[in-house]
C-alpha cells in the first residue's frame, strides 16, 4: 500500500440516532478528516458534540448512517470487508476500562492473540509480559481486574489492546473515570506510546496532554469538526469564536 495514503480517510461521515419519524439526533454531521500514520489526534469539544460517536464509527461499534471510513484502503462499512479482521488492527480503550472480570490480567491480554491471531499461548504470554513490564504491572499478571485500582485497570486495558499489535489506537476519555491521582500514570503510558510513533486518536478533556503530545487537535461541536490545527495554533490562536469560548471555559 502507498505509504502516502492516509491511514484512515473519513469522508462525509453522518450518524443520525433514532429512526425516521421519531425524535432523532444528528450526532455526526458531514465529518471529513484524514488521519495519517504517526498522527496523534486529540479530539475535544463540549459534552454531546459527537466525539464518542465519531470514535466509535471508526471501528464500526456505531454504524454510520452515511459517508465512508476507509481504513488501510478498505471501507469499513462495506459488508464484503471482514470487520473483525479490520478491528484487530484498531485497538480501543474505553472510559470504563471494560476488562474481562472472569479472567486474570494475563488471560485478558492473551485471549485475543491466541484465539484471533492464532499465536501460541507461550508466545502470547511473552509479548504480554513484556508489555506489562513496560507499564510497571508485571507483578499483577495473575491478578483479577477487581483486585486492581482504576489507574492499573486502564493501563492493563491499554496493553491488552496493544497485544493485538494494532496500527491505530482509539481512546475514548481514558482518564475520565479515574481518581485525579491516577490520571498521570495513564497519561504517561499514552505519552510513551505516542513517542513510539503509534497512531492515536484520543478523545480527552486533558488539555495538558493535548498541548504536549498531540500532533493535531480537533474541536467538535454539534456533530461537526469546526477546527483542526496544530496544538500550538489551536491553543494560542484559536480562530473560531465557539472554540475561544470553549477554551476560556476549560483552561
Amino acid at each position, binding site marked *: 500500500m502507498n505509504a502516502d495514503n492516509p491511514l484512515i480517510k473519513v469522508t462525509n461521515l453522518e450518524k443520525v440516532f433514532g429512526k425516521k419519524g421519531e425524535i432523532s439526533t444528528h450526532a455526526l454531521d458531514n465529518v471529513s478528516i484524514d488521519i495519517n500514520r504517526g498522527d496523534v489526534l486529540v479530539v475535544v469539544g463540549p459534552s454531546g458534540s459527537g466525539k464518542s460517536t465519531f470514535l466509535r464509527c471508526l471501528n464500526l461499534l456505531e454504524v454510520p448512517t452515511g459517508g465512508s471510513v476507509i481504513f488501510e484502503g478498505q471501507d469499513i462499512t462495506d459488508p464484503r470487508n471482514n470487520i473483525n479482521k479490520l478491528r484487530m488492527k484498531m*485497538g480501543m480503550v*474505553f472510559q470504563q476500562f*471494560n476488562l*474481562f*472480570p*472472569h479472567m486474570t490480567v494475563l488471560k485478558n491480554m492473551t485471549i485475543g492473540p491466541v484465539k484471533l491471531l492464532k499465536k501460541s499461548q507461550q508466545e502470547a504470554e511473552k509479548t504480554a509480559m513484556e508489555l506489562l513490564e513496560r507499564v510497571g504491572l508485571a507483578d499483577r499478571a495473575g491478578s*483479577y481486574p477487581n483486585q486492581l485500582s482504576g489507574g492499573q485497570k486502564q493501563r492493563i486495558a491499554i496493553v491488552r489492546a496493544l497485544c493485538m499489535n494494532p496500527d491505530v489506537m482509539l481512546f475514548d476519555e481514558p482518564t475520565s473515570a479515574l481518581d485525579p491521582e491516577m490520571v498521570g500514570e495513564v497519561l504517561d503510558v499514552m505519552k510513551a506510546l505516542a513517542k513510539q510513533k503509534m497512531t492515536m486518536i484520543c478523545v480527552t478533556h486533558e488539555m495538558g496532554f493535548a498541548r504536549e503530545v498531540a500532533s493535531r487537535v480537533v474541536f467538535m461541536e454539534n456533530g461537526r469538526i469546526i477546527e483542526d490545527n496544530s496544538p500550538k495554533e489551536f491553543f494560542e490562536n484559536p480562530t473560531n469564536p465557539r472554540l475561544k469560548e470553549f477554551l476560556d471555559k476549560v483552561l
Partner: protein
Amino acid sequence: MFDVFIQKLYANFIQDDRYMYIVNGFFTTCKIALVAIVIGLLLGFVIAIIRSSYDMNKDHSKNGLGSILLSLANKICNLYLTIIRGTPVVVQLLIIYFVIFSTVNVNKTFAAICAFGFNSAAYVAEIVRGGIMSIDKGQLEAGRSLGFSYPLTMIFIILPQAIKNVLPALGNEFIVLIKETSVAGYIAIEDLTKGGDIIRSRTYSAFIPLITVACIYLIVVLVLSKLLNILERRLRAGER
C-alpha cells in the same frame, strides 16, 4: 407399639418385595429428571441466545438475510415461551403423550422426558437470557473491538460471566424440575411418587410409604443444592 411399627415396615417394604416400587420409582424419577435437565439446558441456552442476540442487535439491524432469520427465530421463541409458561406442566405432559405421540407408539418415559425437558427449557431460557442481559454492554464492545465476532464474544466473554451469575437460579430450576416430575403418574409412569402410592394402595397404610417418598426427594434436593454450592464456590474462586 414398637412391634406394630416393625410389622408395618415389613408389610410396606419387605412383603412381596414392595421396596422395589420405591427403588424402581427412584431410578425412573432420576432418569426422567436427568435427561429432562439436559434437554432443558441445551434448548434453553439456544432460545436464550437467540432472544438476547435479537435484543442486542436490533438497533444495528442491517436488513440482511441474517437479521430477517434472527427476527423470525425470535418470534418463534417468544411464542414457545408464551405457550409453555402459560399452561400447566401436567396439561403439557398429557398433551404430549395423548395428543402429539398418540399415533406413534412411544415409551411413556420418553414422552415424560420430552414434556419436562421442553417445559424446563422455557424457564432455563429466561434465566439465562436475564444473565446475558445483565452483563455490561461494555464487555460486548470490548470483545468486538479486539476483533472477536459476535458468536466468539458470546462464547469467550459474555456466557462465562452470565452462567456464573445465574448458577443459583439454574440450580433452583433443577430442584423445581425434579419435584415436578412427581406428576408423571398422570400418564401411568411408575416414578418415585407413584411407587409410594402403589404401596399405600396395597397396604392401606399411608404414613410410611408417603413419608419415605418425601424423605427421598428431600435428600436428593439437599445433595443437589450442596453440589451446586460447591460448584458455585469453585467458579468464583480467586475472583474477589
